[in-house]
């Protein structure tokens, strides 16, 4: 990638340094706390699946039982595996069933019992991590055997609510040119404090993310990948209250990308900030292990705030997402940092502003597979004007070397895309790619022209904002409404009751293995 904007390298270094300073206190908090969802993810990695007759997963039942009897300050693993060994339960499922019936006594073991519980737990979790490793290796092998599509990857959304309807639609989308299929989740799933079970056929404006739905869709895309001779990737969401569990299930079922933002749930879903930051660290550790590319959600800020005035908040959030991701072990090729083409087309020079923003993000994060989102806010219902706007979005995406291009629909905001909408949208992408796909190499903004100056201004504003965030702390900045206009105090929102401060003897076999690389 050629640098075109004349960014001051010292400024870029300062921006990263400020992001690190803003993020470090939050990382310390994540290292000293756990959450119910992190503990449930440990059980999922250890192979506990299924749900009781009411559909409540056994990981929830067991975690709740342990929490009630012994607390979660030491983690779920110590008391759970201690009870397994003491009670002679054949497996976690049997333990969970007995525990749910009130038949199990949990305690925090010490001495030799603690050693035995730790070893047993580590073995079980290791089996889950081995599955994740095997899936990662299988992905690499399939990509080698079948072929990797060139970037930008064309990203399309499927969302019928019924996994058995989603499958043929996803396969059709892949045949039409999609490189990445995203299955949108049912409205409100992010607020459920459990992951639903099984294949599901009913959802509100999306399909429930369940392990079985993951498996079914990945298998279907494997088939179509072989048919088409290119590996088609699958995306879902590690966000909301079950972020850590979603990440574990994604790794186990070989999802390839996961929406995973450090602040999205806080801002847009009123999930408690503390809970979110603790959960995101663990989920990113799992994604790092699974070789999953995360997609961050900065595009959302621009749907609520003004895309020109708030452009620098996108950069700030990207820098924070990058810091948190690297800290959790993700590599740059896994950072699908998000941004969007959301400037009001009535603003003079709107396309130049978009070019400046997109090129700025490209140069700030040269090795990240940037995810570029199409216009949604200014899609008015005039499908003809919308088609034109999408073409400009595609042009900007190709010119600035974006890596993952979400396909814009001219009927955005009107209805779930018709078959023909999607076909026309892909025709738009193909035309721009064929006509101007290489325009980027000839695109050299004037060093002191409008585009370069605008990009530098946005970076300056981002650095200023980061300085202010460092002065008051990131949690305070969120409480003040710095991102996406909403104020979110650290004690507010959902899920704070699921946050537990770790005790001295806290034991989490998954974190031990993920941090130790074993």
């Amino acid at each position, binding site marked *: 990638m050629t640098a075109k904007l004349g960014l001051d390298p010292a400024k870029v270094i300062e921006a990263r340094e400020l992001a690190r300073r803003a993020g470090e206190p939050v990382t310390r908090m994540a290292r000293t706390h756990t959450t119910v969802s992190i503990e449930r993810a440990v059980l999922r990695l250890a192979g506990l699946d299924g749900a009781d007759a009411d559909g409540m997963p056994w990981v929830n039942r067991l975690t709740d039982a342990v929490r009630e009897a012994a607390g979660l300050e030491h983690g779920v693993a110590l008391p759970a595996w201690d009870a397994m060994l003491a009670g002679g339960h054949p497996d976690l499922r049997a333990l969970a069933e007995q525990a749910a019936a009130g038949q199990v006594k949990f305690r925090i073991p010490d001495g030799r019992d603690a050693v035995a519980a730790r070893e047993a737990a580590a073995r079980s979790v290791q089996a889950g991590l081995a599955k994740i490793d095997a899936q990662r290796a299988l992905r690499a092998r399939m990509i080698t055997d079948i072929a990797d599509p060139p970037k930008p990857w064309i990203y399309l959304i499927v969302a019928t609510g019924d996994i058995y309807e989603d499958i043929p639609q996803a396969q*059709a989308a892949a*045949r*039409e040119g999609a490189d990445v299929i995203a299955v949108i989740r049912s*409205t*409100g799933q992010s*607020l459920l404090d459990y992951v639903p079970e099984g294949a599901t056929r009913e959802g*509100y404006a999306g399909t429930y993310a369940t392990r079985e739905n993951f498996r079914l869709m990945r298998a279907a895309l494997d088939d179509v990948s072989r048919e088409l001779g290119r590996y088609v990737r699958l995306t879902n969401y590690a966000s909301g209250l079950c972020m850590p569990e979603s990440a574990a299930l994604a790794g186990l079922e070989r999802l390839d990308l996961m929406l995973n933002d450090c602040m999205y749930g806080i*801002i*847009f*879903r*009123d999930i408690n900030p503390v809970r979110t930051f603790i959960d995101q660290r663990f989920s990113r550790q799992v994604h790092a292990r699974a070789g999953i590319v995360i997609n961050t959600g900065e595009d959302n800020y621009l*749907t*609520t705030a003004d895309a020109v005035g708030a452009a620098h908040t996108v950069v700030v959030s990207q820098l924070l997402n990058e810091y948190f991701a690297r800290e959790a072990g993700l590599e740059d090729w896994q950072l699908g940092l998000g941004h969007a083409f959301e400037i009001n087309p009535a603003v003079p020079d709107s396309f130049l502003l978009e070019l400046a923003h997109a090129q700025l993000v490209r140069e700030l994060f040269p090795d990240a597979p940037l995810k570029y989102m199409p216009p*949604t806010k200014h899609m*008015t*219902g005039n499908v003809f004007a919308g088609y034109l706007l999408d073409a400009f979005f595609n042009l900007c995406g190709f010119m600035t070397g974006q890596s993952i291009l979400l396909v814009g629909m001219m009927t*955005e*905001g*009107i209805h779930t895309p*018709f*078959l*023909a909408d999607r*076909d*026309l949208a892909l025709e738009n992408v193909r035309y721009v790619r064929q006509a101007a796909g290489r325009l980027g190499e000839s695109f050299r903004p004037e060093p002191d022209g409008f585009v370069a100056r605008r990009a530098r201004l946005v970076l300056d504003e981002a650095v200023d904002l980061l300085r202010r965030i460092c002065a008051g702390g990131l949690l305070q900045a969120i409480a003040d409404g710095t991102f*996406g*206009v*909403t104020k979110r105090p650290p004690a507010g929102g*959902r899920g704070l009751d699921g946050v537990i401060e770790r005790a001295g003897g806290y034991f989490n076999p998954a974190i031990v293995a993920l941090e130790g690389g074993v």
Partner: protein
Amino acid sequence: MGDPETRTTGVAQAMDQQRVIRPYGDTTGDGRVQVSFTLPVPSGTEAERALGEGAALQLAAKMGLDPAMVVHAKAIGPDFTFFIVYGRVSHLVDLSAVTVAEREFPVLPSAEVNLRIRAALGRKLAVVGACVGTDAHTVGIDAILNVKGHAGEKGLEYYREIRVVNMGAQVAIPALVSRAVAERADAVLVSQVVTQRDAHLFNARALGEAFRDVRPRPLLVVGGPRFDPSAAGALGVDKIFGRGTTPREVASYLVHALAPEPAGAHTEPASAGTGRAGARA
């Protein structure tokens, strides 16, 4: 519509003549329209293409397009074909027979909602929301309140002049009352999805009763897929929203009820066409 007596006879006549109209392509009365659609027919062979085009023309004829012309046909995968058709509609539109859905309040863009609140209240409008009773289905209340919103519209939290307290699921009605009082709520929003043994009706009535003696009493708004929107009075609440309600409709209603327009102001014509939700209604 203007008052014909204040106009010249010629204009009145012209308007009268225009009460029956046809679509306009490039000449008055030519009736030309464009439609596009997809049919589940393949488009692989010459014979299939001919059959598909015939099918598209048959549909166009049944839609009242005569003559019609398929200007574009393209295969979408092996089983579908997309068509663009131009034609002349034989139908007439009688403007005097057009019925316009009555709405007690106009749906306003968010900027105007904020403006009206600022002008009428001089402070933020406080909303307390909850799912009451045993109902744990927060999908509805969250779709209305969360910034994320619903149906392409941001939730009430997005409005700068609305302060939202979302109490979440399974809130006891007395707790809702005391929170509403503590927050000086202008409005209380309750969503009810569960309808077993008419729990939604029971809870709505309980809500009305619990707030009966609260002064000043906040506006009581109930929503859920199984409510009859006309039953507000019977249940003792101010407003009921049914399935498919969007955040902007709720915001507009709150403004209509709580932040009336200052006397003399007249924004209706300007706001009528500003939003798609308004156009849809």
